[in-house]
């Protein structure tokens, strides 16, 4: 069976600015924006791989049972430009993650916001905030 052609038809392309859908995959076929989640746990594994790095956290339920959750995050190339390397994240460190869960209910989350125990946001992504602030008005944070 022939590989289905990579389709880049004009209709799609008009929207191909940075502002358009950035997902390289069909995000909403895997995750759901109707499932916002907050998870709290400790880091058990860090996989800084492209296109999405993964942070695995051990989450203890109220019954004391520990389950493993995988948080899908950004690209390590991007993280490096924000000063994050594999040594920035410590195993056993506490994290509060806010993001969106999966359609099929598996223990994976598309991470949006990551907070350390001290309340600070994990990804030191100041540049976006400052750029937007300089552009006009302070619309981020």
């Amino acid at each position, binding site marked *: 069976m022939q590989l289905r052609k990579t389709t880049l038809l004009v209709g799609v392309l008009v929207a191909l600015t940075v502002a358009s859908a950035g997902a390289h995959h069909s995000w909403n076929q895997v995750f759901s924006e109707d499932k916002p989640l907050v998870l709290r746990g400790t880091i058990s594994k860090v*996989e800084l791989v492209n296109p999405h790095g993964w942070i695995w956290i051990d989450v203890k339920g109220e019954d004391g049972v520990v389950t493993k959750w995988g948080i899908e995050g950004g690209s*390590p190339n991007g993280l490096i430009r924000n000063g994050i390397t594999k040594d920035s994240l410590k195993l056993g460190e506490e994290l509060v993650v806010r993001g969106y869960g999966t359609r099929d209910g598996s223990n994976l989350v598309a991470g949006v916001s990551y907070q350390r125990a001290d309340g600070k946001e994990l990804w030191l992504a100041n540049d976006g905030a400052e750029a937007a602030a300089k552009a006009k008005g302070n619309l981020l944070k």
Partner: protein
Amino acid sequence: MTPLQRTRTRLGVVTLTWLVAALFAAPLPGFGQGQTYRAPRTAGGRPDLNGFWQALNTAHWDLEAHTAAPGPVLALGAAYAIPPGLGVVRDGPIPYRPDALAKKKGYAANVLKEDAEVKCYLPGVPRMMYMPYPVQIVQSTAQIVMLSEFASAQRTIYIDGKEPPPADTWMGWSNGRWDGETLVIDSKGFLGGTISALDEAGAIQVRFLDRAGNYHTDGLHVVERIRRTGPDHLSYEATIEDPNVYTRPWTISMPLYRRVEPNMELGEFKCEEFAGDLIFGRYAKEPAAK
């Protein structure tokens, strides 16, 4: 001096000369023209490693000495049987820890499921260098890139690089330096296996160094030494260390041969396409034909 005395004296001189020469000659590492070959230089002043290079041995089947054996797929008969080879391990046998050796035997029995090559995953280091495909070296001053025809695998060697790996990868992070004629490459920051989120159909446990199940984990550290030994040959050595698997470092060595045909290029071998149905066929609308 009598004729006999003259002959003995000449023999003595010849012997002495030979002994002196032998003492000062560079020891040969096993093949090639030895360390006396001075490679042409690039415009940047370094030994020129540019070109297309390929191993011509059975290291990719099995790094250790091995006799011929049937291949993993009966229907492919003699065409894909395992040819014999005397191995490339200089200080063998490979020094496995006992627990790791047991794992290796398990992997050897399960190659089709566990070998990254079958799924067109990245071959890693040093395996990329002796797969049965050409490797192109493109050499600049601050960086050298090495490109494999297989799976578009590539490595960047940072010349005089001192940075540790910022993140782990399957091809590792390579800092290199020139030691006279020799390029010495120190590579760390390797991943093993696959990511945790991957479906079982795509998951593998470790990364193989060959098709026989010799393997490494994310504890791998490799030091390579590459130099020209003639117009069309490289000497390639790799010292492999992984405390999760081996009791000590061990070294492989082999020549790499220049692909001398005119207009040589790496072909496009996007093997991901050929592994697609294998890995993702389980949830296809109609399961792929076997």
